[in-house]
C-alpha cells in the first residue's frame, strides 16, 4: 500500500472560480456582499429597504438565489436596479459557478456594488466561497437566540450580523443581548446592527455600515491601482 498526500481543498474547483470572480470584482472595483440567513429572516426585505434608499444613479446590482420561483427578483426589480434570479432547482446553496454564469451578460464595469442573496439556509452556504468581500448573516428575533451556537460556521465567517425584526421584541421571548453575546462568543470580532425592515429601526446604522464598507473598498482600490 502506498499513501499519496493530496493536500488540497475538497471544494478546490469552487474556490478556483471564486478566486477568479474575486479578481474580476477587484479589477472593476466592485464590492460584493453575500447575504445568508434561514428562510424568512428578512434578506429580501433588507435588500428592498436598501435599494429603496440608494440614489437612482447608484451602480448597484443584485443576484438572488432560491430553490424555485422568481418571486424575490420580482420584488427587487421594482427599484430599477439590475436584478437577476438564480433558481437552483434543488441545490441548498449558491456556488461560485452559478454566480459566474449569471454574471455573464452584465457589464461589470457598470457596477460598484453587488449583493448576492443566498438560498435561505444557515448551513451549506457557509462552505461556498462566491468571491465576495464579506459575508453578512441575518438573524431575526422570531428565531432562537442560540442560533449562533447551533450554526457556528456562518456566524464565524460573517463580518456583520444583522438582527432583524426588532419591532417584534415586545411580543417574543427573544433575548437580544444573549443573541449578540452568542454571536460574539463564536466570532469575537463580528459587527452587529439591530434593525426592523418593517418599522425602519436601525436601518440608518445598516446603511452607515454599508457606506463605510464601500468607502473602505474604494480607498483600498485606489491604493492598489
Amino acid at each position, binding site marked *: 500500500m502506498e499513501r499519496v498526500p*493530496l493536500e488540497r481543498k*475538497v471544494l478546490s474547483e469552487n474556490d478556483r472560480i471564486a478566486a477568479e470572480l474575486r479578481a474580476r470584482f477587484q479589477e472593476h472595483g466592485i464590492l460584493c456582499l453575500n447575504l445568508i440567513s434561514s428562510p424568512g429572516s428578512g434578506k429580501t426585505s433588507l435588500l428592498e429597504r436598501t435599494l429603496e434608499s440608494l440614489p437612482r444613479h447608484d451602480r448597484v446590482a443584485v443576484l438572488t438565489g432560491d430553490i424555485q420561483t422568481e418571486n424575490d427578483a420580482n420584488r427587487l426589480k421594482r427599484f430599477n436596479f439590475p436584478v437577476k434570479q438564480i433558481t437552483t432547482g434543488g441545490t441548498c446553496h449558491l456556488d461560485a459557478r452559478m454566480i459566474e454564469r449569471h454574471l455573464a451578460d452584465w457589464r461589470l464595469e457598470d457596477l460598484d456594488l453587488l449583493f448576492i442573496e443566498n438560498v435561505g439556509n444557515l*448551513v451549506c452556504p*457557509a*462552505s461556498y466561497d462566491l468571491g465576495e468581500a464579506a459575508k453578512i448573516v441575518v438573524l431575526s428575533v422570531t428565531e432562537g437566540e442560540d442560533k449562533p451556537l447551533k450554526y457556528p*460556521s456562518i456566524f464565524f465567517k460573517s463580518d456583520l450580523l444583522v438582527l432583524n425584526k426588532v419591532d417584534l421584541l415586545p411580543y417574543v421571548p427573544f433575548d437580544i443581548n444573549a443573541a449578540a453575546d452568542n454571536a460574539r462568543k463564536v466570532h469575537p470580532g463580528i459587527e452587529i446592527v439591530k434593525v426592523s425592515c418593517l418599522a425602519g429601526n436601525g436601518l440608518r446604522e445598516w446603511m452607515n455600515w454599508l457606506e463605510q464598507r464601500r468607502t473602505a473598498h474604494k480607498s483600498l482600490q485606489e491604493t492598489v491601482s
Partner: protein
Amino acid sequence: MRRETRQAASQQKIMHEMGIANSVLEAVRTEMGLHPGTYPSKVGVRIGEMAAIDQDALRFCFEAIIQETDLASLELGIEVCPRRHRCQVCRHDFVVRDYDSRCPQCATFETTCISGDELELAYLEVEEYGASTVGAKSTQ
C-alpha cells in the same frame, strides 16, 4: 434559459454533504489517473469542527454514491480538526472549547483562529493490482 439552469442544477446534488462526497470522489478519480496499475483503497479528508459538515451525513452520502461502482470498496477516513486559536499577546496555541476563545495562559481575548474550518483532502491510499489480496475490489 431557465430550463438550462434547472438542468445544470440537477446535475449537482441536492444535499450539501452529497456535493462534498461527489467532490471527494472526483478528486480520487483525477488522482488515480496519475497512478496506473493501482486501485484506491482509502481516501482521507480533514474536516474542521467549524466547517458545517455532518460526518455521518458525509459518510452516508459517500457510501451511497460508490455503491455498485468500481470504487465500491473505497474507504473514507475522516479526521475532525478542532478549532484552534493563537494568542496575539503570548503566542500560545490552544484548542477552543465551548466557544471560549480567551487565551488560557494570559486570559486575553486578543486571539485569532488558526484552524478549525478545514474541508480538505488529506491523502489517498493506493494498492497495486494483484500485489496483496486477490479480489480486493469485491465487496465483503
